[in-house]
């Protein structure tokens, strides 16, 4: 066990994966000699060489496309997109190639790739260094969308993802990269995909969230002594619907929190899935506390990202509802 922040935990996970399996290849912009703009890959090129930790030219669709081609021939590529905001030129490779390959070849070809990318706000990045685009991936059948909320999970989920035989979009909440430290096991361990975690338990309501917002919700509940379940989805798709419904049936009151814009955000899917399955348990409307339907601003990002005040407004509304 060592105390690590999320950058260190992911770095440690990548290091381990590289050591254990020579099929694992990292590729991306500035990940080699520079160690990544967030230092997540620090030291790995030196340790494993330029052919395993590859600095690439500036072309996201090429990074992803190459990684798919590696995966199709037995390697386990872990491409990095420097900021999730820059992933969109690679969307065709992700949606039309990676996600559909197993299906269209009836399993003859598969894409065991882990596409890592930092997402979300909180680093004064403005419109183009702050986006939370998980909903774009979550709507794409064939992808598995994962986002950790702390160092321990980050390493464990990453190692599961590298072992997984389908493409994983691994979204790293950059705001949490260095803000939380946890005890992290030194060797190999796995946190399972497709399993949510209940990070706090209580009877009055259910908060469903993931990634960057989990610590905020936890702190809010602790500070205001909210007696509720907090579910950290960890894998968005396929979502752990069992854990969600079980909690909703217990509490009857639900608030969903994410940083991405509300309209068409993943919160909508969570809400719709609950209404479909557990309408009769609902004692109050399902509320969403999310980023607004506007581009992510530079200066006013603290207003953009859901905070204590907005979460408690929703919590109180839910608790008062009858």
């Amino acid at each position, binding site marked *: 066990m060592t105390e690590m922040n999320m950058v260190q935990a992911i770095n440690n996970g990548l290091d381990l994966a590289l050591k254990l399996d020579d099929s694992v290849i990292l590729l991306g912009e500035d990940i080699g000699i520079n160690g990544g703009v967030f230092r997540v890959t620090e030291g790995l090129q030196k340790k494993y060489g330029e052919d395993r930790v590859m600095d690439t*030219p500036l072309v996201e669709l090429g990074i992803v496309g190459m990684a798919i081609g*590696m995966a199709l*021939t037995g390697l386990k590529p872990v491409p990095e997109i420097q900021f999730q905001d820059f992933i969109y030129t690679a969307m065709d490779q992700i949606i*039309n190639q990676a996600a559909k390959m197993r299906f*269209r070849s*009836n399993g003859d070809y598969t894409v065991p790739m882990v596409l890592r990318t930092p997402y979300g706000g909180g680093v004064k990045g403005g419109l183009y260094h702050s986006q939370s685009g998980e909903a774009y991936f979550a709507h794409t059948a064939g992808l598995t969308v994962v986002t950790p909320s702390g160092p321990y999970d980050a390493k464990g989920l990453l190692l599961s993802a590298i072992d997984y035989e389908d493409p994983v979009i691994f979204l790293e909440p950059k705001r949490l990269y260095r803000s939380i430290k946890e005890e992290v096991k030194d060797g190999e361990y796995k946190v399972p995909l497709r399993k949510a975690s209940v990070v706090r338990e209580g009877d009055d309501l259910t908060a469903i969230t993931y990634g960057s917002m989990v610590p905020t919700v936890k702190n809010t509940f602790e500070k205001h002594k909210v007696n509720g379940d907090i579910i950290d989805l960890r894998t968005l798709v*396929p979502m752990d619907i069992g854990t969600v419904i079980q909690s909703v049936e217990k509490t009857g009151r639900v608030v969903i929190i994410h940083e991405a814009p509300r309209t068409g955000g993943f919160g909508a899917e969570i809400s719709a899935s609950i209404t479909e399955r557990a309408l009769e348990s609902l004692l109050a409307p399902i509320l969403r506390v999310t980023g607004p339907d506007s581009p992510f601003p530079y200066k006013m990002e603290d207003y953009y990202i859901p905070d204590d005040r907005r979460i408690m407004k929703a919590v109180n509304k839910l608790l008062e509802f009858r």
Partner: protein
Amino acid sequence: MPEQDKSEEKTRLIKAYTAIVLSRTLDNKIVVSQRQGRVGFYTPTIGQEALQVGASMALQDKDLIYGYYRDVPLMLHRGVPMENIINQIMGNREDSALGRQMPSHYCDKKRNFMSVQSPVATNLPLAVGSAYTQKYRKTNSIVLTTFGEGSTSAPDFHAALNLAAVYNLPVIFLCENNGWAISMPVEKQTLAEIWTKASAYGMRGVRANGNDLLETYEVTREAVKRAREGKGPTLIDAVSFRMGPHSTSDDPTKYRDVIVEEGSDKDPVIITEKLLKSKGYIDDKFIESIKTRAEKIVNDKFEECAKIPAADPSSAFTGVYKESSWMLDEEVKDLL
């Protein structure tokens, strides 16, 4: 040429010519069948036979191919069984994709022919990645990828060529330059000749007369040799002509006059026959017999394949993940 070499060349060229004839015969059969409603859609390969077979001649079985929707001659020459192609086009139970993919979207893992997608040029970065694997694993295999000249305008072309050059990878970019991208002639697609685009990446680029089987073979052979020796990628601009429509949904009279008639001097089948005749390898009788045999093979195979039933409907909604998702399981229960 020593006798031994001559006899080897003869075998090689007759194999090539046979693939060309088979492919042309199959092409015509499918086009007719499409009009009869027996096939849903097809992208004819007529006109591109010599270049594809010429390129295929230069490859080893272990080499990988990332082809596109017009590569029937290449596949036949490589040894993909004809029934695999027909089954794919019919989308029946024996289709590699169980009827999930549109016709002309082939896949044959046994022959290292990767799965074909519709969005053009997006196979190119994949080919580069797979070439990286060959280099990394020191397999001594190379990767060939094919695409039309229209696809050189697509972003993936740019990405792939630059990456292949930068990492000095064993990959060959074979542009099947048939002069048209649906209704867009190559002169309006780009002002540069396709082979010259290689220089933008510090890569070797060469042109080949794609109607000349031997020229395309030689050019590809040289590229393969270089790739295998670690001398990096090549862009080959194999110039031919799209003799048919873009697809069975296309009406080329809207935008062009026919320029190459089947059976004319410019038809690569005729050009190849002339070549083999001039070398004394075949004569008219041989040609006739091979064409008759091709007709029979194609018709028989076609009818055999036509009898194969469709895949079970449920197969259209499985195999998305290794471990299925509960959402899909739930949905499929509702829709079947």
